[in-house]
């Protein structure tokens, strides 16, 4: 394939989305939103320690993408992994327990906010290093091809990570060896406190894929069904053995870095992205009501169910034991 043959869109026939799938997606999005808000509350109260990087505003990306995956597919994430972890694993209790550093957490309290893993559901971790998941995703995709399975890997990374050298190295190898990996660049328009305009020489990141003959697309990352359709097409290509795809989801991080560190984004911009016109959850709810998938009352009921799930998760986490100090050396090495 030469660069000329690369299609600028991977969109094709949209896979059908059932009513149940749509409601499940909405529930996951609300769960992530409320999980993050609760994490911030617990962090400010000193119950959660360390650093937290909140996913508020970006829920449609993780949920739309993970809805295309099976449990035996793989996903990697970065330092803002709660949303990806919940979308892939969807275990509020064990994820919250990890946030509180408890033995019942996904990583037995050894990882915390940035290092949630779930082997059974193919979640290969958050990552404290921006770009650290990129090579790991390449390896998971390599393993699928090596074994001859149709598993795929989604590598969630950000506009910030896109400027790390390993992205270039990994895209070259993925294209060269036709590995089943979807490079999912979540352009939330800011890295820590530096905007894309100050960090990146072009407004769009996805066209870089063209240099590697990797098909690419840019989609509205706050439209969960558009994310689902775009990633779904890329997943289908990867399962057919046609290799890698690069998708840039344009979205917006509504919280400051670490939940508390000030940046210089205009207040009007934040207000716009929080408005029903832009907010991914409000938008999806409006679509579902308009399409008569559910009523406003039913979405309200769903919000209440999520509140209960979250309360149960926090209670589970708070009641769980901390790791015993004598287990400090567990798994430094395997026996």
């Amino acid at each position, binding site marked *: 394939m030469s660069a000329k043959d690369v299609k600028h869109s991977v969109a094709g026939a949209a896979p059908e989305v059932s009513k149940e799938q749509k409601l499940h997606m909405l529930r996951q999005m609300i769960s992530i939103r409320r999980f993050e808000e609760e994490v911030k509350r617990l962090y400010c109260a000193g119950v959660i320690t360390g650093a937290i990087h909140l996913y508020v505003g970006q829920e449609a990306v993780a949920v739309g993408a993970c809805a295309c995956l099976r449990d035996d597919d793989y996903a990697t994430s970065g330092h803002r992994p709660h949303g990806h972890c919940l979308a892939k694993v969807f275990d509020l209790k064990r994820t919250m327990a990890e946030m509180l550093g408890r033995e019942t957490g996904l990583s037995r309290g050894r990882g915390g906010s940035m290092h949630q893993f779930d082997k059974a559901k193919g979640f290969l971790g958050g990552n404290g290093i921006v770009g650290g998941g990129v*090579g*790991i995703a390449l390896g998971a995709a390599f393993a699928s091809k090596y074994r001859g399975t149709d598993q795929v890997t989604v590598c969630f990374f950000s506009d910030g990570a896109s400027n790390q050298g*390993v992205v270039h190295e990994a895209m070259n190898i993925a294209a060269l060896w036709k590995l089943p990996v979807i490079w999912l660049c979540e352009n939330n328009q800011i890295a820590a406190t530096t905007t894309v305009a100050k960090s990146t020489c072009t407004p769009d990141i996805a066209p870089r894929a063209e240099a590697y003959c990797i098909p690419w697309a840019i989609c509205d990352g706050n439209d969960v069904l558009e994310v689902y359709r775009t990633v779904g097409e890329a997943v289908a290509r990867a399962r057919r053995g046609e290799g890698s795809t690069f998708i840039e989801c344009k979205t917006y991080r509504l919280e400051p870095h670490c939940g508390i560190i000030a940046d210089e984004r205009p207040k009007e911009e934040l207000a716009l992205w929080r408005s029903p016109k832009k907010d991914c959850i409000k938008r999806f709810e409006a679509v579902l009501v308009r399409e008569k998938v559910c009523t406003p009352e039913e979405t309200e009921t769903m919000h209440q169910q999520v509140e209960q799930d979250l309360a149960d998760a926090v209670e589970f986490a708070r009641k769980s034991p901390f790791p015993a100090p004598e287990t400090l050396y567990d*798994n430094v090495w395997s026996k």
Partner: protein
Amino acid sequence: MRKLTYAAAICEAQCEEMARDDRVFVVGEDVDISGGVYKLTCGIREKFGEKRLIGTPISEEAFCGLAVGAAMAGLRPIVEIMYIDFILMAMDPVVNQMAKVQFMSGGQFRMPVVIRAQAGAGTAEAAQHSQSFEAWFSHTPGFKVCMPATVYDAKGLLKSAIRDDNPVLVIENRVLFFDEEEVPEGEWTVPLGKADVAREGKDITLVATGIMRRKALAAAKALERQVSVEVIDPRTIVPLDIETILGSVGKTGRLLVVHESPTRNGIGAEIVRRVVAEGFDYLNGPPKVLAGADTPIPFSSTLEKAALPQEETITRAVKEMVGA
């Protein structure tokens, strides 16, 4: 018995383990072309094909990251780093990811990755092709580190490393690649964490790593009419077989550690620390370290020789310590 070179032993170990376990594959720069630059992957392509012997672009960070992800997905990668100096391009996947995933994931994932990297000076390749990093990686929790110095150990340690579920850095030495030794037929393994008493003696213990084993043995032979030198090759730096070293110091009362890598904060300092802490009463005098100069490795042969412990400097240090 038969004759085998150090390089051939490395090839043989990989072929045997690849036949034993189809999850094992080799990845690295030039490994698939005529057995690689240093001929350390000969015979693999013929037996197992290019699916399991993967030549890469010059992208150390990506292919070391690939090894991490492939291991998490159930494979058992062997990564060849052509010169250990190049591993610095991959410090994130190697140190931040590979060494920590088992721990950070609460033990969900295993990390059965072998990094084979050749290291060391002595071939006039200057400061960026001659380094020794065993201290760096020994300092990173999560790794095992070994330094085979004989043909027998090159094969046996590598086979153990491939079977281990942890990341193991196997530091090979190119000066030794064409050394030939008598070795047994067939298969053998050498356990990680077991030192080798290379020569028995009663007056002083020389702990010598990697290629320094050879120089220490030469010094011991040169001194044999005056001093009885015991030479111990730890073989594995992490985990360290401190019992064998303490047992020897208990017998000789004197310890000299010899290594090629720079002296400051080196593994010699760590071995001396352990012996002082756990065997102080055995010592008849201060334990010492004779190691590489705290300089980058120079190009010119006079300087390169001066930067490294040599048979003569070891001999002199031993004489001083025993008062011979």
